[in-house]
Every structure is written in C-alpha cells, then in structure tokens.
C-alpha cells in the first residue's frame, strides 16, 4: 500500500504534519550533532574471554530468577535439555528452528513428546487452533540468536524458523546458546541487528531476560503472568 492509500484513514498528510514540526523548530538556534551513545568503551567487547562471558551471563540470569545450564558440546546440551525436561515432568514440548534431530532422539529416549513449529497448520482459519495447541505445551525450545552476558538476556531475531510464540506462549522457554551467540553487550547485538534488519529484511527482535514478572499487586513479585514463568538457558561451549 502506498502513502496515498494511507490517507484514506484520515489525519494530516505527512507534508502538513512535518510542516508543523518545522514551524515549531524554526525559532530554535544552532542544532547539536548526534552525541554518540556508547555506554562504555567498545574494546571491552573484544577483551572478554568466553568463560568470563559465561560467568557474567550466569550471574545476571540467576539474579533475575532464570536458570543457567552448561554443556561442552551440542550433543551434551540436548541430553541435558531432555533430562531436565523429563525431571520437570514435561509431557510435550515444541521445537522451533535449527536441526533438532539429535534433540528429538534425546527427548524420545527420555519419554518427552514433541512437535515441530514448522509442522503446525497455520493456514488461514487454522491459526487459532494452532495457537491453542501452543497453549497446551509444557515448554518451547529454540536456539538463541544472541545472548548478552552483561544482562543475562537472550535475543531472538524472528523469521520463519524462529517463531514468536514458541518462546512466549508455553509456561517454560528453553534457549540453547551456542558459543558464538554469546556477546558481552546489548549494544553489540543492536549494531548487528540494525544491519540485518536493513539487509535481510528481518522484522522483529526481542530481548528476553528471565521469566515474565509483575509487581502490579501491591508491589508483590509474581512470575509467569503472561509470558513463561520459567526461563532456562543452556550455554554450550561449541
């Protein structure tokens, strides 16, 4: 749809709207340059060792009520995920993105049923039913696109494989964090994603830090009010 069609919904044209803004700004003197927005020196990023980032991430995530797990290989990570889900009495889980055949084998061996996000019927009219099914899963599992060590945040850059609902609708989200996904600062992620949004046409990024929380009832903390009440991050050394 072009801007011309947008006008059908009423309001001012862009030109008229911006003219008002310019008229307002007109009286103001010389304009300041963009001041930059670095919180700290950029080279800190390069100086952090992987083990240091793992340590920071774990501290930050646990501080907000998330759970950090560790594995040296992906194969081990899948076993850890299957074991822990079985231990938490998860009956059925949802997998999204990535080649999860090894994980599927591990889940089957541990007695946890699973579905693939890519198999869900999202054709027109079936979407509601598909989402109601999401409602019934005990956990959603996907790879993290990035993880931010200083904040304990998982960053998800959505696309066909990385569904938005997977990490949101089930009561538990399990995020597998590969070595090269773990960076020190949120800023590094934003710089990277800015490029990918413009070049790859990615449309949505979410930072997830710990479980869903609310303090709207007398400042008393409660978790899982809308999003997952549990967040597990499995940090993998490879």
């Amino acid at each position, binding site marked *: 749809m072009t801007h011309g069609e947008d006008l059908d919904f009423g309001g001012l044209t862009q030109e008229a709207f911006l003219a008002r803004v310019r008229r307002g700004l007109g009286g103001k003197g010389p304009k300041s340059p963009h001041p930059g927005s670095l919180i700290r020196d950029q080279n800190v990023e390069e100086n952090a060792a992987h083990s240091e980032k793992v340590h920071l991430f774990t501290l930050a995530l646990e501080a907000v009520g998330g759970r950090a797990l560790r594995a040296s290989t992906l194969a081990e990570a899948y076993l850890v995920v299957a074991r822990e889900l079985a231990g938490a009495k998860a009956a059925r889980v949802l997998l999204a993105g990535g080649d999860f055949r090894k994980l599927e084998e591990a889940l089957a061996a541990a007695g946890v049923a699973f579905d693939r996000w890519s198999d869900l019927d999202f054709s027109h009219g079936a979407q509601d039913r598909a989402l109601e099914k999401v409602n019934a899963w005990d956990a959603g599992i996907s790879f993290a696109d990035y993880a931010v060590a200083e904040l304990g945040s998982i960053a998800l850059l959505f696309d066909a494989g990385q569904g938005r609902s997977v990490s949101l609708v089930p009561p538990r989200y399990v995020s597998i964090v590969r070595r090269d996904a773990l960076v020190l600062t949120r800023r590094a992620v934003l710089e990277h994603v800015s490029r990918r949004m413009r070049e790859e046409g990615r449309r*949505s990024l979410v930072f997830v830090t710990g479980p869903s929380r609310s303090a709207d009832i007398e400042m008393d903390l409660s978790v899982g009010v809308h999003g997952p009440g549990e967040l597990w991050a499995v940090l993998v050394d490879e």
Partner: protein
Amino acid sequence: MAKAAILDRIDQALGNERLRRAVRKATDTFRGGRARVISDFDWEAMREKARALRAHTIEHLDYYLEQLAARVRENGGHVHFAENASQAVEIVRRIAAHHGVRSVAKSKSMISEEIHLNEVLEADGIEVYETDLGEYIIQLARETPSHIIGPALHKSREDIAELFSKLEGRPLSSDTPTLTQVARRRLREVFLKADMGITGCNFAVAETGSIVIVTNEGNGRMVTSLPRVQVTLMGMERIVPRLEDLDLLLAMLTRSATGQRTTSYVSIVSGPRKEGERDGPEAFHLVIVDNMRSSILGGEFQEALNCIRCGACLNICPVYRQIGGHAYGWVYSGPIGAVLTPLYKGIEEWGEVAQASSLCGACYDVCPVKIPLHDMLVGIRRASVETGKSKALERLAFRAFGFVMSRPGMYRAALKIGRLAQAPFVRKGRFRAAPPPLSSWLSHRSLPSLPKRSFREIWAKGIDDEPGDRRGTS
C-alpha cells in the same frame, strides 16, 4: 473549573490514608531499586549523554520523523499522522473498520489515555481489553492510571480480589498467585481471540523503522505476536535515531523506572511479518500523534519533550508521595505531569497544577535525561500568573501579614483574636474557608487550625500542665 477539581482531588487524596500508604510503599520500592543499580557506571556522565541524545533528536525531529515513516513503509507498514486526539481516534476507528476488527488487546499506552481511545472503540461495538495487569485492574475498576509505571499501585489486594471475584462469580482469596492466575487465564483468551493489538511505544527507531515496547509481563510481546493487525500509537517525540542508541536509553529508562538493569522483555517490531513467517502481525499501522507537542517546540519548555516516561520524578516528589497520581487531574502526574498537563491542555485552565510541587529540585536530580523540571514548574507558574487571573486579594493578605509580623504586640493580639475567631471556619482541625482576604489563599489550600496555645505561650509556661495536647506529631 480545573482548579476547583484539583483541590477536591488533593483533599480527597490527603484524607485517604490507605492510598497514601500504598503510594509511599510503591515509590519507596522503585526508588530503592533505582539506588541499587545507578552505580553500575558513571551515572552522571550517562545522564549527560542521554540528555544530549534526546536534545539532538528533538532538534532534528522533522528529519528523523521523515526517515522513520519512510522505513516503516519500506518494511510494508502503514504510517498515519494525527494533529490531535480526535484525528488519532478517527484513524484507529477506520483501521479497525478496514480490517473488520471485533476485539482488541491493548498493551500499555499513555497516549491512548490522552485521546480516550477505549471509550470510542467500545461505542463502535468493539471489545477492548487492557492486558498489562495493572491496567487490566483499573479497567475493571473503571479508573485511570495513577502512576506511569504502576498504574494500579493505589489499589489494595483486597480491592483487586473483589474485582476479580465479581468477574469470576465466586469468592477469591487475595493472595498474589491466585489473582495472577485469574488474570493470566482470562487474558490468555483475550490474546488468542483478539483481531487487533494496540500498543504504545517507548521508542521508535528512525534508522530501521522500528517501534520498541518495554514490558515485564510479556503482554507487549503477546499483543505484537498474536493478533493479525497491529496498531502502534506514538507521541511524535518518542523517536531515537539509530538502533544502537536504544542501549543507552533503555539502560537509563529501566534503571530509573523500576531499578532493573533491563526489563524482562524488550520487543522491537519493524513492520508486519515477513513472507513465510507463521506468526506476528499481517498488517502494521503506525499512528504518529502531535496533540499539542509541536506547540512546545522552539519555546522555553522544549526540553519537556525529552522525557522518556520513567516515572522517577514521581517517585522522588514529596508532593506526589502525599497525594498520588489522580490528584493531578489528567494522564500524566508528578512533576513531569505538572509541566506537561498545562502545556498540553492550556495554561490558563490547568496552570494551577504546577502549584502541586515544592520546587525542591529533586525531580531534576533524578531525571535520567536532565530535564530542568523545577525551572519549568516556575516557568509554568509565571505563565499562569501572566494569564491575568486576579491575585489582588492574595497580595493584600501578604501585605497585612508583613505588617503584623513586624509588630510583636500586634502579632500576639492577632493570634488571640484568631483563636477566638477561627471557630466557624475550622473543620476536622483544618481551615477550609475564611473571610477575605484569607479566602483567596484558602481556596486552594487548607491550613491547620490555630492551637489552643501558641508556641510562645508554651515556651513561656511549659507544656506539662496540659496533658490533652497532642505531642510528637507534626
């Protein structure tokens, strides 16, 4: 009209001890959290950087708005411009009609409060559900937010249990998990059936054409992931130039608001879902709203547009802490509300709100983008006086005060006369009314009544001979 209403609301708030306790508890919690996390880095240097970033952005607002609109369209979204509240509402109505919308899930939007959107959509037969837990509570109570971060902080758990019990048709206990689970179950149905999500906008990124929503509950994610249409309402000053600029402003916002290093969720949405994506909105509409903001540009109050809506000035303000948010009479409360309300709604009618401050400057000290709120409050007061409202009686009263105070014998005599003469005007130990010239002063204040004995008399004779006196209170 605004003046009398504000006085009534302040009186009401001061008489409501439960409200004042709740407000103090909440603001103390927010302030305690903030104090713990602002030492993560050189806070003063970051404030200056954030101030400069906001100032630069507003000075180039026309450029960045143009860039934002172009990027959103490139991403497949639609952009609409509203000069005022009625245009904004009309645009949203037409979007809803265009997409055949029956049901709306909303995440928190202060601007939708500015324009009274819910009422209009409901009148069109559309169901509108607030999904932030606090907003949901006050929607059920048919009230308005009393704090920008904690909209329902004035409600007790008993109030909430009562509202939810009515909804469920069965008595509920008032413990947090029970109440949270009711909200989760009910709002989950809302998310799944809503055709349209309406969100506010903490920031909009010009470079990528993105809107940014900061939440802890995840309702912002739900509203931008499940409904097939997304509408985002944006005050035109919410913009940042580049995606990486968010890092600084998010760091300042969440620390100042709730004392968190980050919130649980930061959602960044740059248009409708891509081809092949299985969830996310199919249609994306950005409504950019002026609603008096352009009239502030270029003038002495331009920096008020730098506000990032953290609420830190509310939490620190000694006046807000006593009277809560509703007393301010409009959408925004606390020091920033006392500045914005007269600017958005008209100084002549609403200038009086700027009196709800002590000019102590604490609001400026905590502001993460260094808005000189105390100077602005003085500026609004001055502009309010310049609108020509008669203060002749007030000036007369101060002249009489000066005359009496400079003559000790007359002061003592005046006090005695006052004690005898006050009786008809005192209610619950406070002056509510008085003959002129005091009537002018008391039209917007109440004063403690004169005690039985003056301080000078107590000082001279000691206090022990009068056991009925209240002591140790202030």
